[in-house]
């Protein structure tokens, strides 16, 4: 990523990807069909990956596409397919007026709050040179700056994460297993 005065095309593309992500997210929330919603969410994730790459996080951008847009969304689509939910439900999926108004107020309040917070200047004590990651990338490549703290400073957290994944896999299998009687199994097989 260039530093100092950013070129116009860079700023333009950053805004473009950001706005595309927001438009896709709005489309995702408003689609009635679960499959269409999932597809719009994939579009949002691709645009977010583009934003990550533009923010000097190339490796995270790739991981975003592989893990989120690839693996996690495929799991979602599998479940939609398994439960045969591909069509919009007969009962309206969108909540009634009270829910809409509550959600709208909540959205406006949250947005105002977050925007107010982003208006604040970061205290000078916390300020570091803004080109720090770019310099690290120039020195050691894209992956090493991420791998260094991951396998040194945060090694314990990394190991605990593997336990978390194991627990999640076991939990998913236990929850997904048929623990009914043989009658239940026979019904499901038929």
């Amino acid at each position, binding site marked *: 990523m260039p530093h100092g005065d950013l070129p116009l095309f860079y700023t333009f593309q950053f805004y473009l990807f950001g706005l595309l992500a927001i438009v896709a997210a709005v489309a995702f*929330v408003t689609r009635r069909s679960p499959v269409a919603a999932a597809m719009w969410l994939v579009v949002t994730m691709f645009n977010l990956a583009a934003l990550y790459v533009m923010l000097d996080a190339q490796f995270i951008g790739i991981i975003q596409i592989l893990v989120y847009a690839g693996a996690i969304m495929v799991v979602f689509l599998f*479940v939609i397919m398994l439960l045969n939910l591909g069509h919009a439900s007969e009962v309206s999926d969108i*909540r009634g007026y009270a829910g809409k108004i509550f959600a709208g107020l909540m959205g406006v309040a949250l947005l105002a709050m977050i925007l107010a917070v982003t208006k604040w200047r970061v205290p000078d004590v916390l300020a*570091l040179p803004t080109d720090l*990651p770019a310099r690290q990338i120039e020195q050691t490549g894209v992956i090493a700056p991420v791998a260094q703290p991951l396998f040194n400073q945060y090694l314990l957290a990394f190991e605990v994460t593997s336990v978390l994944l194991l627990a999640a896999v076991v939990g998913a299998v236990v929850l*997904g297993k048929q623990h009914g009687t043989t009658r239940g199994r026979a019904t499901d097989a038929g």
Partner: protein
Amino acid sequence: MLAEALFFSAVLFTIGVFGVLIRRNAIIIFMCVELMLNAVNLTFVAFARAYGVTGQVFVFFVMTVAAAEAAVGLAIIIALFRHKQSVDLQNINLLKG
């Protein structure tokens, strides 16, 4: 770029919250949670650019937790569907007084 990235992140998070509040389909609500996690990741990456690359490590952990959460959550949704033949939260109101 930091301010713009934080703005996009805030808007995406708000859309996620809005979706959780307004939808009834459990799977779509679950996807809205994923959208919120993604918005937080964008904040992490934006701050990582300004304050050192450690923030990207946290994005890793968030992604791992999101993957674990997706696996367990979807298993719960499947178990729920076996019970109720529906993933519509309107039909799942056992805890309602």
